[in-house]
Structures are given as structure tokens and as C-alpha cells.
């Protein structure tokens, strides 16, 4: 009887331990993902630091795709802000390592495909004249992929709108096209329910900002 009780206690505490760890994880992730729509996050130093923090969480957990995903997201945004473009490719290599790990934990994930599209766009900025063709196609392909995995993901249309807005018209960009995509993104945002409070939910304020730009 005593043995049974101890065994029961032991299993019980194991389960609680897992939950406790998960509480620590939820805690850290909630804190780290809370300010992803705040403009103060988007400075090179903040992005680097947050990327590092997500990487630490990712490497400690190893079975969660979200911290790898966020680490890559921070790194790609940091990439867009780099002044010395020669640093960009190694940084994107690192982001892609994180995305690969995220994808192995969560295959066919629309959110991961969105970040892959951003990585391709970032690589394009190093040398648009010669890289445009290859990485432009890659960025579009990843968004297409993202749409196949989950057409309800608002960030697909946000990125599409962003790309249409910032591509010069003679290269296929279009303000009116951007407006349509961004408005669609907003309706998708309104309907979008993140799986948890740490699942990707960023982008709505940025979409509004882009839409304002596209509308004037």
C-alpha cells in the first residue's frame, strides 16, 4: 500500500514537474511575445537580444517550434536593419537553421513559410539587381506555400501587401494591389484566433500602418 502510494506520488510529481516546466516556458514566452507589435522592439539591439533569448529558450526546450520560429523572426527583422549588408547572409543562414528546426517539429506550417519568405526578401536586398530574380521568386513561392498550408493566416496577405507596396511599379508592384491585399489581411486578422497567447499573433498594427501608406 505504501509502495503504491509512493509510486502514485512519484508519477504525480513527474506530471506536475512537466507542467511546471511548461509554466516556466509559458511565462517566458508570454513575456517575450508580448511586445512584438511594439515599435520599440524593432531596433537592431533589441532584435538581437530578443533573438538570442528565443534561441536560449528554444535550445533548452528543444521540442517546441515556437521559440525557434520567433528567434528566426527576430533575426530576419534584424537583417532588414543591417547597415553592412555583407553580414546579412550569415545571419540569414542562422535564421534558416532555426526555421529548419521549427519545421521539423511542426511540418507544413504556414507561419514558418511566411518567415522563409521574409528571409528570401532579406537576401534579395543585398543585391537586388542580380538577386532579384532568384530570391523574388523564392519569396513568392514561400507565400504561396503558406497559403496552401493555411489560407486563413493573415500574415500571408500582410507580407504580400508589403511586397506589392515596396516593389517599384515597373517591376510588378502596385499600390492598389497592395491595398487590396492589406485590406484582406485585416479581415483575416479580425477572424484569426491564435492557438494560444504565445502563438504568432503579430502584424495587425503594422498592416494598418502599411495600409495608410498604400491609401495615400
Amino acid at each position, binding site marked *: 500500500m505504501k509502495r503504491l502510494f509512493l509510486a502514485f506520488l512519484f508519477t504525480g510529481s513527474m506530471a506536475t514537474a512537466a507542467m511546471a516546466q511548461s509554466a516556466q516556458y509559458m511565462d517566458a514566452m508570454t513575456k517575450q511575445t508580448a511586445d512584438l507589435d511594439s515599435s520599440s522592439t524593432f531596433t537592431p539591439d533589441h532584435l538581437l537580444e530578443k533573438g538570442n533569448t528565443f534561441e536560449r529558450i528554444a535550445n533548452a526546450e528543444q521540442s517546441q517550434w515556437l521559440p525557434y520560429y520567433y528567434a528566426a523572426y527576430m533575426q530576419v527583422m534584424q537583417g532588414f536593419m543591417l547597415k553592412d549588408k555583407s553580414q546579412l547572409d550569415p545571419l540569414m543562414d542562422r535564421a534558416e537553421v532555426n526555421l529548419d528546426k521549427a519545421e521539423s517539429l511542426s511540418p507544413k506550417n504556414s507561419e514558418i513559410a511566411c518567415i522563409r519568405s521574409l528571409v528570401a526578401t532579406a537576401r534579395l536586398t543585398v543585391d537586388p539587381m*542580380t538577386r532579384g530574380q532568384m530570391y523574388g521568386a523564392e519569396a513568392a*513561392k514561400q507565400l504561396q506555400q503558406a497559403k496552401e498550408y493555411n489560407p486563413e493566416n493573415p500574415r500571408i496577405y500582410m507580407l504580400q501587401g508589403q511586397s506589392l507596396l515596396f516593389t517599384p511599379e515597373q517591376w510588378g508592384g502596385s499600390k492598389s494591389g497592395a491595398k487590396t491585399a492589406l485590406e484582406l489581411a485585416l479581415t483575416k486578422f479580425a477572424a484569426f484566433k491564435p492557438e494560444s497567447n504565445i502563438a504568432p499573433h503579430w502584424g495587425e498594427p503594422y498592416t494598418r500602418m502599411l495600409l495608410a501608406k498604400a491609401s495615400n
Partner: protein
Amino acid sequence: MSKFNLYLYLLICFPLVSLAQNKVTGKVTDSKKHPLAGVNIAIRGTYDGATTATDGTFSFTTSASGDQIISASFTGYQPMELKANVSASEPINIILKNNINALRVVTISAGSFEASDDKKGTVLKPLDIVTTAGAGADIVNAIKTLPGAQQTNDREGLFVRGGTGYETQTLIDGMLVRNPFSTSLPDIPGRGRFSPFLFKGTTFSSGGYSAQYGQALSSALILESTDLPTRSSSSLGLSVIGVNGGVDKLTKDKKTSYGVEADYTNLAPYFNVVKPKQTPSLGPEIIGTSANFRRKTSSTGMLKFYGYGNWTKMGFNSNSLEYPGYMESFKVHNNNVYTNLTYRESIGHDWHLYAGASFSINTDNIHTDTLLKNPAPTLIKVRSTLSQSKLMLYKNLGSFSVVRFGGEYQYAIENSSFNEKTANYVDNYTAAFAEGDIYITPSLVGRLGGRAEYSSILAKMNFAPRVSLAYKFDNYSQFSLAYGDYYQKPEPQYLRFNNYLGYMKATHYIASFQRISNSYTFRTEVFYKKYKDLVKTVPSYNNNGDGYAKGIEVFWRDRKTFKNVDYWISYSYLDTKRDYLNYPFRVQPDFAANHTASIVYKHYLSKISTNLGLTYTFATGRPYYDPNLPVDKFMSEKTMTYNAVGVSASYLTNIRKAFTIFVLSVSNALGNKQVFGYHYSTDGLRRNEITPNVPRFIYLGMFMNFGIDRRQDVLNNL
């Protein structure tokens, strides 16, 4: 649960809660003791860690204690882990090593201009090589704006560092192209046969090239075809001289692609409006087709096929120099077929296999007629057939070093007839080569190799050693040296009539320095080239010719200083003399200019979505032969200096769903007079200037693309 159980539970679940927090501090530097900022420091298995500050220091608290694994990771550096006691409150100092990536590794660069996306730090990108106003989407015309190449625009081919056009070989995916240029008329050079957009990489080597390549005394133009396209697409083009269309299909599994292309060019209507110097009597009319097939046979295997067929006819009448008042006629029909099949695969244990086969056939039927004066028109037929196979194995040693060896076999049939007289020969050519790129350190590499060849028509063997060395000072600058022996068979027109000739030989010595950053490139090279055993035709065919070439070349490219502007400048100084063919002694040959310079300028005007291009080329006069002068004054006269300005403008827009671009380009826009030499009548009393057939060529065209946005291609194609 009882109170006891709750305590037990807390004890089991939160063993660390009761322990004190430890403060961990330290500093991260690189191997040269420079602090590294932004490094991610972590205690393995925990969330605890920090990002290093600008001075490389870090500090954080952790509930972990005792010996822990501390990891440090940073973009561009090798990650590092070390064991440390976090309770000890001693600073932890970490040194990170550079990640040795392609950017930092030295590459063999003496003599070669590589345009490729594969490697960073290349001088030009594939698109740049065709970015030359006035080059008209011709690879060789664009390469003529690079140092080392001459502006010999009255004959086809690349004339490099005192070498003739014959001394340059063109290779596609490692396989030789026997007739890389379309058929030409006297004094009118033929264009390159292959579209620049077939290739993802182009290497123009003006000397010192690898033992993989033989039978080129001066230069190798190494073209590497593109891999699978990213999407299916189709295209349509319309211009003042013709139409073209093509389809490229990528299969659903994205492992196979195939495509066909066809073009039709007819210059007759154009020449009705813009009268050329010589009057067209046939065409010029060109029908071209090509087909390709590519298959990714495995994650590392790639099979590629490319086939090309071209039918050209053209003819011109011109005033006879020999018989004033009479007309001379020259007509040519050319058929050309080229096929190329290559396969690459990794065969395990760091070994790789390359196999290739190609077949080509080229036929020229030439009718010449010097009316009335000759009893009958002359018919010249020239047909060359080449079958080729090549096998190469290579193995990676360590991270960067590689050894290569392989063999090559060529079977060539050269037929020719002059009216009823024929002169044919067959050559079996075999070659073996071995070469190693040995990295002593990531910044110091040596290449040692050799090539042995045997040609049955010459019944002779040769052995050519090749050595290069390159050293990289920092991320941007490197210094290279190269030495090598190069052998080549005499041209078919001499071999046809004399089988006792031997190989011609050139020895290259090259020193080069280059500095490449993201926004600019600087490169300079000095070279000395020694020629031996060149073919002489006087008093009879022999190998007693010789010569030398030496010079200095400078290249500068800047993509940053001026907004929306990319430009490059190249300058070549060449001092060369040779005694060959019918030359009485060593002189500067008629294809060589002492000074050659080019400026290529591109400007993008975003407001009107138009790209402007401008190319200026300059060359000092070339020697020419005046039969009225005494022998000791042979080739002592020089032509006027050469000046050419090419301009182009392109406007981008959308027509329905198709990306469309309108193109206007003008060669020799300022109408500068260009004289490449003189023809003299036999008695020496009359002479004709050799000038371009059309002094200024105006091209207007429109390209539409459905599918992939290839407007950038077309834009760079001007």
C-alpha cells in the same frame, strides 16, 4: 494531500527554489582579443543567459549552480561550449574563432574574371557580363570591355593578350564548343551563337587557367549552364530584325524541366532602309532553334542536355578592288548543330563524378565570284565534325582542398573542298590531366597540376605543367601568381595541307592583385607570355614562328558612389611582337593595339522606369601591311585610333498580364569613323579601308514574358 506531501512535492518539483541565485559574468573576444558584441551566452538546458554588450562583457543571474556547460554562439563564428563553475563567481572569459566561410577563403584568381552567383567576391555577376550598351546581348562583345581583350571588331573571336581569336577556346559545362561563333563574311565578324541567359556562370580566363582545359594558347571562356528554372514560363520577342519565342516547362515534382526556343532573323528589310557598305545579295536570314532538358536525378545528381541548331544564309556584293568597275560576290550557307550532355553526381566518401559528351557539326558552303575575270565562280565547302567525351573524378580533402583528375577524348573530321579539290583529315585527340587545389591555410592556396595530350594528326605528345598560388590578406584583398605551359594544334587550314606540323606553345607568367568589397572592385594584373613554335607559311609550312606579349591591366568597378549608377573602367597596356605566318620578322601583329580602354555606365531612372546604358571603348591604332613599303618597314604603319560609343534605353511596363520591355539601342551612336585596316590591290596601287559594314546600328525591339519576370534579364541584355 497532507502537509507532508505538499512539502515533499515542493521539494521534488522545485529543487532549485531553495538555492541561491548565482551571478555569472565574463567577456567574449575573438582570437585577436577584440571584444565581440551580440554573442548569445547560455547555460545549457536552461533559459538563463545573456547577450554580450559592446565591450564584449556579459552578466546574468541563474538558479543553476556548480559545474555547468556554458555555450557561446555568434553569427559568423564557430559556436563554443565550455564547462564552468557558475557558483564560483569568477569571470568566464571566452574566445570565439572565426567561422571560415567562403567569404574568407582565398580562391585562385590570377588571370580569371569570374561572373557567378555561387561565390561571393566575384568581380562580375552573370547579368553584369551582358550589361553593356552596344554589346547587343553578345557574351564576347561584353567581355571585350574587360581588361586583356582587344577591340578587334573586324573579325570574330576573343583576341586576348597578344593572342589570336583561334587561341581562345569556349567551353560549355566543361565541353569544348568547336564553332562558338556564327558564320561570318570577310571583315564582318560573326556573333556568338549562345544566348547569355543560358548560363549561370561565366569565367573569362585571360591566362593561367586550370589543367582541366587544353588546346588554348591564350584564353578560355568557361560557360556554366543554368540549373532548373524556378517556374514555367514563356516568352515572345519582336524587333526590327526578327521574332523569337520560347517555352520553358518545370514539371510538377520540380525535378525535371524542358524547353524549346526558336528564332527567325531577317536583316534584308533593315538593309533596305539603312544601306550597308556592301550590298546584300542573299538574306541575311537566320533560323535558329534550341532545346534543353534538365533533370535532378538525386539530391546531388544533375543531368543536363542542350541542343542547338542554326541555319544561316547571307551574301553581299562589293566593288572589286582588283578590277575597278566590277563587282565581287560572296555568298555563304551555314548549318550548325551542337549538342551537349553532362552528368554530375556525388559517389560517396567525398568523391564526385563528372561525365560529359558532345557532338557538333558545322558546314559552310561559300560561293565567291569575281565576275568575268575568273573563268568560273569558286565554291568552297568546309565541314567540321567533332565528337567529344570527358570523364573527371574529384575528391574533397578537408574543408577546402580538392584533387581532380580525368581524361578527354575527341574525334574530329575536318573536310574541305575548293571547287573539285578536296583536303580532308581526321584527328584522334586524347588528353589526361591531374590537379590539386591544396589549402595550406584558409588564406593560402596552391594549385599544382599537369596535362598530357596526344594528337594523332600531329603524331606528337605534349606535357603541360600548371602552377598557381593565391594569398588573401584580409576579407577583401588577395594576391595571386600563376605559371603554366599551354599547347595548341595549328589551325585546320594549315593542318589540312601539311601533316608534319607540331604543337604551338605559349608559356604564361601572371601576377595579380585584387580588392573586392560589396560596393567596389579593384584589380590589376601584370603578365608575360612567351610564344614558341608558331606556324609559319613562308618559305613553306613550318613551326619556326615565335613571339612574346607583356602588359599591365587595371579594372575598377564602383556601384555605390553615385546613386542608381553602376560603372566600370578597364584599361589594358599590351606590348607584343610575333613572327608567324608570312611575317618576315617579329613585329606587332595587325590584331593588337597598345592601349585599350572601356567605360561601361548604367543609370536607372526610376521616375520614368527607364534604364540608360552607355559604353565607351577606345583603342590605339593597329598595325597594317602596306605592300608599297620596303620589307624592313613591314607592319610599321598604324590605323587611326578606335572610338565607339554605344547607348541604350529601355522602358519597362505591363501589357495585360505580360511583363513587357521596349528597347532602343544604338551602336557607335556618335558615328565615329572606325578603320580596322586596309586591303591593297595586288599591284599596290589601290586600297580599301576595312570599316564596319553598317557604321551605326539602330535596334528597336519589344520583349514580352509570361510567367517569370525576366524583364531584368532583358534590361541587362542591352
